[in-house]
């Protein structure tokens, strides 16, 4: 399509497609217009009014986020009128946000502070209005702090319109308006953290565990401190430091974590390979057993598991009994690794770096304990880790990448793509396919590595697969908002992957801000490129993972470390 219309912004001629908003055109042309409530993935709300511009011939200002440009218009983004309105709106909004900068993970790149600086405005021009507002805490994962909320409603929109959970609501009118968890007994938070990812001012934020990490790091020397990094984190953390989208920064993460004080850094990609081995085995078992429950449904997304336990406990038998990659790796560290290294498991602290807020909840599940030990001791989001790196003046951009060099290896390409929607399924299919081929059951064996049918950004991805004669109907649910159709037609499928966050973990609630469909696509490309680059691209080719699984089974730890169970869950009490 050709750019058909021509408009002028601050004297600059801009070509644009018809249907584009003034804000979109300005951004394409590198003309800055501030915005707070605007998010490319959400419906336009135009409630913050800081993106106002003047259009020649119109008396009232227009919100550039909502107004579609007409051919020939002349727009001013910084006229006297615009300055007045924009600055007044900013000052008014600043006074809704109680400054809690000291401990805020956004403080090194705060939207509000940046705008105050840019326009030379005082952030406390008006008295803070919301000092007495409540903080709503959702398990140990997400908090919505009313004293910092600027009423942009992105959290409500993403919770209702994208995730379709409807947990957050707007209560009250005018200045009494407040974002609150619903009182509806049939609705509960699934901890996906998309509200935190879409909040421009960290009013909705993950429950901070970085202060705990500081305490843990202070035990250096007394305990063995191990950090583990999730597949998707390496493709996103660079954004926090101005590095390109989709760049694999696992080496820099290892180096930075060691600099922070960790004795060892390990890769959850290894854990993902273990998960694949366990899950593929279960898939084949269920496919071969006529009495087994089908479809088999993935369980490595803790927000999805919470969803199922609360909304559809009747489907619990469909979930794979396989634990998730971080829990697998944590358990392996505290059993296999501890024994090989001759370290008491009680003396090991494992901190997991995750793209996710729900993972904080997952590690608190008592059924995951191995004896008295929790496989993982703390979960930090990517944002929390980036904050810690900045806080400790570690120059991430310049830091020299390091390798983890441990007896636990860095995992396969299949484990890496766990970070993307469809990745878990593709990994399991790679391994299941190989297993069928390997066994005598297969008549013809066409070795197959890539399953592109289950990749991509569609809400539901369906495929009919032929695994060497075994016909398999699969579905991948990309974002919990798309779950309904699949659950309504469950019997159509043999195997289903569900990721609560759009894009999968790569678009997770704990990833860097901003995040959008476009950004998530760039991060995802990094994962698939990474998979192509490595030699070992399947879990079953990861000899280390196979060895560990065998070791666990031989030592009668298979059930304790590799499997779990689920239970019907009632609505959480809100603290």
């Amino acid at each position, binding site marked *: 399509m050709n750019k058909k219309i021509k408009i002028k912004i601050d004297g600059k001629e801009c070509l644009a497609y018809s249907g584009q908003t003034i804000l979109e055109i300005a951004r394409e042309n590198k003309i800055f217009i501030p915005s707070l409530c605007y998010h490319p993935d959400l419906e336009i709300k135009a409630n913050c*009014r800081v993106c106002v511009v003047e259009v020649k011939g119109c008396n009232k200002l227009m919100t550039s986020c909502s107004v579609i440009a007409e051919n020939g218009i002349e727009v001013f983004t910084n006229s006297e*009128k615009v300055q007045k309105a924009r600055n007044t*709106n900013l000052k008014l909004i600043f006074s809704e946000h109680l400054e809690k900068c000291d401990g805020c993970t956004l403080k090194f790149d705060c939207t509000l502070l940046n705008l105050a600086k840019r326009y030379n405005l005082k952030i406390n021009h008006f008295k803070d209005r919301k000092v007495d507002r409540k903080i709503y805490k959702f398990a140990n994962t997400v908090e919505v702090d009313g004293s910092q909320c600027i009423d942009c409603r992105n959290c409500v929109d993403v919770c209702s319109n994208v995730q379709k959970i409807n947990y957050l609501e707007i209560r009250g009118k005018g200045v009494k308006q407040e974002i609150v968890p619903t009182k509806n007994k049939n609705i509960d938070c699934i901890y996906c953290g998309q509200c935190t990812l879409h909040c421009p001012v960290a009013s909705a934020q993950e429950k901070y565990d970085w202060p705990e990490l500081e305490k843990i790091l202070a035990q250096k020397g007394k305990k063995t401190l191990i950090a583990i990094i999730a597949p998707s984190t390496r493709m996103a953390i660079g954004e926090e430091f101005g590095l390109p989208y989709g760049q694999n920064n696992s080496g820099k993460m290892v180096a930075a974590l060691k600099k922070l004080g960790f004795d060892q850094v390990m890769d959850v990609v290894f854990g993902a390979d273990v998960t694949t081995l366990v899950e593929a085995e279960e898939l084949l078992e269920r496919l071969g057993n006529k009495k087994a429950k089908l479809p088999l449904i993935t369980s490595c997304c803790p927000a999805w598991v919470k969803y199922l336990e609360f909304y559809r406990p009747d489907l619990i038998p469909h979930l794979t009994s396989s634990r998730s990659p971080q829990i697998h790796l944590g358990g392996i560290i505290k059993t296999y690794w501890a024994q090989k290294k001759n370290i008491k498991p009680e003396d090991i602290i494992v901190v997991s770096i995750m793209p996710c807020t729900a993972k904080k909840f997952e590690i608190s599940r008592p059924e995951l304990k191995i004896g008295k030990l929790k496989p993982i001791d703390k979960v930090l989001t990517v944002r929390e880790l980036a904050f810690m790196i900045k806080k400790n003046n570690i120059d991430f951009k310049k830091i020299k990448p390091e390798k983890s060099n441990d007896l636990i290896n860095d995992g396969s390409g299949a484990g890496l793509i766990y970070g993307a929607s469809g990745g878990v399924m593709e990994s399991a299919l790679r391994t299941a396919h190989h297993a069928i081929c390997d066994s005598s059951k297969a008549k013809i064996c066409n070795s197959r590595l890539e399953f592109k049918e289950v990749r991509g950004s569609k809400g539901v991805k369906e495929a009919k697969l032929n695994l060497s004669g075994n016909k398999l109907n699969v579905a991948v649910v990309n974002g919990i908002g798309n779950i309904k159709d699949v659950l309504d037609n469950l019997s159509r499928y043999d195997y289903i992957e569900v990721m609560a966050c759009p894009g999968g973990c790569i678009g997770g609630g704990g990833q860097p801000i901003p995040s959008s469909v476009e950004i998530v696509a760039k991060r995802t490309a990094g994962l698939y490129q990474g998979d192509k680059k490595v030699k070992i691209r399947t879990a079953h080719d990861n000899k280390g993972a196979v060895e560990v699984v065998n070791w666990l089974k031989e030592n009668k730890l298979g059930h304790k470390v590799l499997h779990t169970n689920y239970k019907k869950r009632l609505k959480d009490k809100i603290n």
Partner: protein
Amino acid sequence: MSIIKKIESACLIGRGGAGFPTHIKLQAVAKSKSKVRYLVINGAEGEPGIYKDGYIIKNHLKEFSQGVKIASDFIKAKKIYFYLNSKYYKLYNSAIIKEFNKAGLKGQFEIFKKPKEAGYIGGEESTILNIIEGQHLEPRLRPPFPTEKGLFGEPTLINNIETIYNIYLVSINKFSHQRFYSINLASKNIGVYSLPDDWSIAKVLRETGNYPDYKFFVQVGGDASGDVLNEKQLEQKVSGAGSITIYDLEKHQSLELIKYWLSFFVGHSCGQCAPCREGTYRLLELFEDISSSSKCQKDCLLKANKDFLDICENLSLSSFCALGVSAPIAVLSYFKNVFPLKVS
């Protein structure tokens, strides 16, 4: 002549306050491709000082019902929602049902009671659509306009009671360019008068025998959002929804009046946009916080307060809907047109 031609040549405009040409709205809905269309009659009448819609229901219900039938037939409405404030609902609900049935609308309409908490914003047309749909009590982003995408996403004609009544008058060739004026003293309603719509404020007051024999000023177009004018500014037409409220210049309490206006908008802002939610709140806060000095009263200090003026200007420049835009009108026009007279 067709009804639409009649309406067009009579230059009928909406009587809800915005003054939009009626025939354009009607045609926009009638011409839409969608088969489902709705008619919503706005009987919210939430602005203090205006009560002419209630007067029409009380005195001209039959004619009004005929107007509903004409408008509904013209746009081929699937259903009519008569949105009515709770006071009128209580008074006239059964009479309206009877009269609508008689007009041939049986089974085609629903009288929808305006929720108590809806307040002033509950009379804004897109807010009404949200309320009927069970959505949040606040205006919608425009475009799309209700005529394209209104109630339940379908093309919707929303008109005020007086406008619908006028459609009836036009249809029987009896529309004589009159409008209903609600006239009030500071705290007392005087009554509703039907008079030519091009009369000046002064003429309306004189002809109805309400022109004061004392020094006074007026608020025109609603006691909350109307323009405040002094005695020398009365040669203009009556704006908005057609009300004139007379205040005694000597006796009126400046501070109380200002506080009334400011509080009204804090209480009635829906809270959706920053300029209105925060702005109206800060205006009242500034008013409360400014302490009078020996030289200058609160009001005269407020009049010169930069924040106060900035917020007022911002309300009119960048508010989401007309409520925010109208929030500073009374207080600013009072300062401009009346306040200097008072202090001198």
